[in-house]
């Protein structure tokens, strides 16, 4: 259940940003979570439901977006969509690839209720 400890970090960032922007409430939180991030979106969602209670983000909707797994071959230059356990180049089979998407674990944006 390391999703719970991640939510602490997430909530800390959200609260700080809400305070910076003098927001009254947090309406939404968008997190991008790739298949290779090691985080299970469903668990993140239920963990967040626990930690948000009593905070400025209590009413916030957590939007978890997945991300495609994309590798860029360092040998032939081909950029291709891959699966989480098959990350070699689909064009030339080289293992010399760079993962350019798929392991993100990012707080992408938050919607703040700043209305007076």
């Amino acid at each position, binding site marked *: 259940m390391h999703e719970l*400890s991640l939510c602490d970090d997430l909530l800390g960032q959200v609260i700080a940003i809400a305070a910076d922007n003098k927001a009254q409430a947090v309406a939404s939180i968008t997190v991008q979570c790739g298949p290779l991030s090691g985080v299970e979106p469903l668990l993140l969602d239920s963990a967040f439901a626990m930690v948000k209670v009593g905070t400025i983000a209590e009413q916030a909707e957590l939007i978890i977006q997945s991300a495609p797994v994309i*590798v860029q071959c360092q040998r032939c230059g081909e950029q291709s969509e891959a699966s989480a356990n098959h990350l070699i180049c689909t064009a030339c089979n080289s293992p010399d690839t760079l993962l350019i998407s798929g392991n993100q674990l990012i707080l992408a944006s938050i919607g*703040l209720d700043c209305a007076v």
Partner: protein
Amino acid sequence: MCNTCGCTITPGNRPLVLAETPKHGVTTVTVLQNLLSQNNHQADHNRAHFDAHQVLVINLMSSPGSGKTALLEATIKRLRDSLSIAVIEGDLETENDAQRIRAQGVPAYQITTGTACHLDAHLVHQALHHLSLENLDLVFIENVGNLVCPASFDLGHHRNVVLLSVTEGDDKPAKYPVMFRAADLLLISKTDLLPFLDDFSVEKAEQNQHNLANTAPVLAISAKDGAGLDAWIAWLHAEIAQHKARLQNQQTTQPKVHQDTGLPSVAEVKPKFYPVSKPAAPR
């Protein structure tokens, strides 16, 4: 990462950023901050502390019962006369592993995580208050036995070593890609049991690892009969030498998982001393 010039926007998250539309009464703030930033910050702090003591730190990860502690016992037996070693142990409960290490004449600190399924940089930082790094060459962090969560947390170490014992099955790298992608070295352990198994192929395990585009070396070892241990010891010596050479050039060594954290990294190497237990000695 700067949050202003757009350098944090990657092909993966660009559509997400562009898709945002303003809603009445709600201001959208683009953040693009790694969720593990607190852990990663602490990890960099730990690494700087290790670097100030010129010690190489290896994070050992595997399923429970893959032979991490047995490997450490065999390794310490071979190295204790030539290198100064310490071990940080992570388990949910008991001091058993730390006691096994201490019996080899090497200092060990046991972190008991209670219910937590992994070590994180903060737990390792706390352990450093109980473990002197003076004059050490090598520290092993034996992570909690788990092929899932430990892979996501940078501890401030320099290299990831992942064990796969032959009784677990050769398809583990395909099943747990996050973990096996992070390996700087894959050790196939308990090879003394291979004659009793008809369903484990070292070649297949290597192929599954190769499919993850991980070109890290793979060594087959047995802590019991000593097979492959010479190559493992040679790898350790080479890593210690390379790490010392990097430190000479004001650089550090990053484990694989830390190199691509999903956000373009602009972190520079800071050979700064962060005191953990004692005030900084003038360097």
